[in-house]
């Protein structure tokens, strides 16, 4: 009897010790910790703002139902177009309705959203649920630049967006084209091109030799997405956004004018109407074999290989005619832009902050994120070191190892989106500038206007405030390409 009593006492003691030790979650994965802690909220519902379209299929078809099955918490997905996400998040915060619990946030917006008080600081949750270790596995460029504002965590980097160059190995490797290239330029055709000069010479020659079947290259020229490409190329050409002392805009410097002038020149050997190409038009041209090279976000590489394009959700993606003939590389200049991306955050006006945090920790965790970045229909791109080296991912299609290697290299050398106070106003001026460029206006005149608009925005924000924000951003190792 006594022994039995001792046994129960010992068991109770062990249970108590285990309960005390529970917050450290010593050996459990972050996903399991989140699930266990979230079970107390079973029967409730949390909402999450997600980019409308393919991106939202992740929580709608995969992660949302799985989370509900494991925790009993329903997930309501609020789909919002990217262009309206910032507005909606701010409007909801100002209204204080508590309609959003968790958020997808483009990291460049984070300083503005934090200053507006719209995002919940996450450090306390990260410690409480033992997530710091797994955060270390996120590729440094995302972890160090897309997670914190003023040293505090406001978002969990969740999407390895970066521009990648895609090129047709069969065309760039064609002896006839290589011969013609050497005859014209006096050096071997570089596979892949490493500088913009090489890229333009290769692209123009392919169009010349093939008569446009295929064209040498095409790009996303749509101002909304083209502005990312401007930011990237401007810095790869040596451009600096602002004079750090005076905060006067430098976007109209020779580097900016060169980018715009080169774009106009390139259009002449690209498909007619390339000025109107957006994400889908450019994708269609590449997958149908109409272009030999292009630059875009990582999903192009998966779809070009035919990965997952049999899924019903991807029936709008043109069937790839080039599977097995695509090479992947870092963009010319060597420093691709980490364009856009997403971080997972918790809304400061949420009434379910803890449950919302646990959901995003679970989504972002090592165990779950590796599944999410392999969903063929969603658009989340590898962002953890373990994603780039995953044997499972490498086996998805024959060239997947090269694809992942290119993504990893791009993540290592990538440069950040400009992220200062009211960044979108500066980006809007570039968007307007690109739109004017395609209507035939002079690059220098356009960029002088863009610079004037930037200066006006800086004045309105306050030169000193913006100077401090810019200094903070520019001090990051990935703000500008390292000086040679």
């Amino acid at each position, binding site marked *: 009897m006594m022994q039995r009593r001792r046994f129960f006492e010992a068991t109770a003691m062990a249970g108590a010790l285990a309960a005390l030790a529970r917050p450290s979650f010593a050996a459990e994965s972050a996903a399991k910790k989140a699930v266990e802690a979230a079970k107390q909220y079973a029967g409730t519902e949390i909402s999450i703002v997600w980019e409308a379209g393919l991106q939202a299929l992740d929580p709608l078809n995969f992660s949302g139902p799985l989370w509900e099955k494991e925790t009993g918490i329903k997930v309501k997905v609020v789909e919002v177009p990217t*262009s309206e996400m910032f*507005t909606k998040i*701010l*409007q909801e915060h*100002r209204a204080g309705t508590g309609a959003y619990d968790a958020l997808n946030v483009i990291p460049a917006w984070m300083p*503005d959203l934090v*200053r*507006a008080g719209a995002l919940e600081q996450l450090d306390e949750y990260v410690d409480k649920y033992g997530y710091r270790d797994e955060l270390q596995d996120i590729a440094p460029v995302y972890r160090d630049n897309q997670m914190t504002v003023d040293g505090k965590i406001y978002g969990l980097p969740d999407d390895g967006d970066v521009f990648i160059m895609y090129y047709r190995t069969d065309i760039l490797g064609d002896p006839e084209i290589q011969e013609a290239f050497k005859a014209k330029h006096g050096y071997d055709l570089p596979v892949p091109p490493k500088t913009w000069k090489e890229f333009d010479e290769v692209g123009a020659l392919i169009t010349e030799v093939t008569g446009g079947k295929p064209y040498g290259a095409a790009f996303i020229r749509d*101002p909304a997405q083209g502005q990312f490409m401007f930011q990237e190329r401007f810095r790869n050409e040596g451009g600096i956004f602002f004079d750090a002392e005076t905060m006067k805009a430098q976007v109209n410097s020779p580097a900016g004018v060169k980018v715009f002038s080169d774009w106009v020149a390139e259009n002449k050997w690209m*498909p*007619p*109407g390339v*000025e*109107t190409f957006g994400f889908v*038009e450019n994708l269609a041209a590449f997958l149908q074999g109409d272009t030999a090279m292009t630059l875009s976000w990582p999903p192009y590489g998966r779809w070009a290989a035919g990965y997952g394009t049999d899924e019903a959700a991807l029936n709008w993606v043109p069937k790839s005619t080039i599977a097995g003939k695509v090479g992947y590389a870092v963009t010319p200049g060597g420093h691709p832009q980490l364009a856009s991306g997403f971080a997972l955050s918790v809304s400061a006006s949420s009434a379910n902050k803890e449950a919302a945090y646990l959901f995003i920790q679970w989504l972002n965790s090592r165990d779950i994120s590796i599944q999410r970045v392999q969903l063929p229909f969603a658009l989340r791109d590898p962002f953890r070191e373990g994603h780039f080296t995953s044997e499972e991912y490498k086996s998805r299609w024959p060239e997947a190892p090269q694809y992942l290697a290119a993504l990893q290299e791009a993540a290592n050398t990538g440069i950040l989106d400009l992220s200062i*106070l*009211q960044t*979108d*106003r500066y980006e*809007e001026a570039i968007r*307007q*500038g690109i*739109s*004017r460029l*395609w*209507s*035939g*206006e002079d690059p220098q005149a356009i960029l002088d206007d863009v610079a004037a608009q930037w200066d006006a925005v800086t004045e309105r924000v306050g030169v000193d405030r913006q100077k401090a924000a810019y200094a903070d951003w520019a001090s990051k190792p990935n703000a500008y390409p390292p000086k040679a």
Partner: protein
Amino acid sequence: MTQPNVHRHDRRFGYAMIAPAVAIILFIGLFPLIWTLLVSVQNISMIDEDTSFQGLLNYQRLMSDTRFWEALGHTLMFTAVALPLELILGLALALLFLEELPGRPVFVALLVLPTVISPIVAGAAWRLLFDNRFGPINQVISWMAGEPVTILWLNDPNFVYAAILIAEVWQWTPFMFLLLFASLTNVDPSLSEAARIDGAGFWRTLWSIILPVIRPVIVIALLIRGLDLFRIFDVIWALTKGGPGTRTETISIYAYVQGFQQFETSYTAAMAFVIIVILTVLVMAALKRVEIAR
């Protein structure tokens, strides 16, 4: 009770009876205006915490904002071109359908279809039609030309206005047609008959008999469409978003960009207030001119 007292009592009772209605009208009509005015003299933006009183600074900024005046110019240009086009085409169609044609009800119903489509959907449909790569318009032109023709309808400044006007006129001419057709069917046929017997030709009859009779309807139709065109947004947003650059940006698009993309709440309020003043003056002048206000 004396007679004047009775009148005073009746008047007070009358005021009391209409007071709730007047209060509601004032609240609905004036409160948003006053609120807009109040917001316009502050420094409210969704991003900044500073919402201090700014006086007329936003109005001063507006006066020197070339983009605002350009947008106003584009708006007036679209109105000046589209309005007469819709009137002339609508009238021509109405006159045509006055005749007893076989299948007339079916054609009238088909003709009215564009008007019932949401303008943003119509804009999206025209965007596809004008697409330089997959759109049928360039394909038809290419067949006719016998060689590939790539017209960047929505990017090339030489074509973009035409593209917008085609979409706009396509959608709203049927509205003009409907109003004018209804009024023409009410014109006494004996008037035109008499004119014809007196030797008046088609144009003379139209100018001197029919148009004067349907003039009030024309004025109302012009007023409705004029106001709509002044606020034009959806179709242009779907087609060009105001581009290339800001070449097709209208006042509504500029206000939307400032208010909902740039979060300049107070500046947008100042813009809205100026637009309201301009529109009020224009409408009052138009009404006075056609003596409808009386």
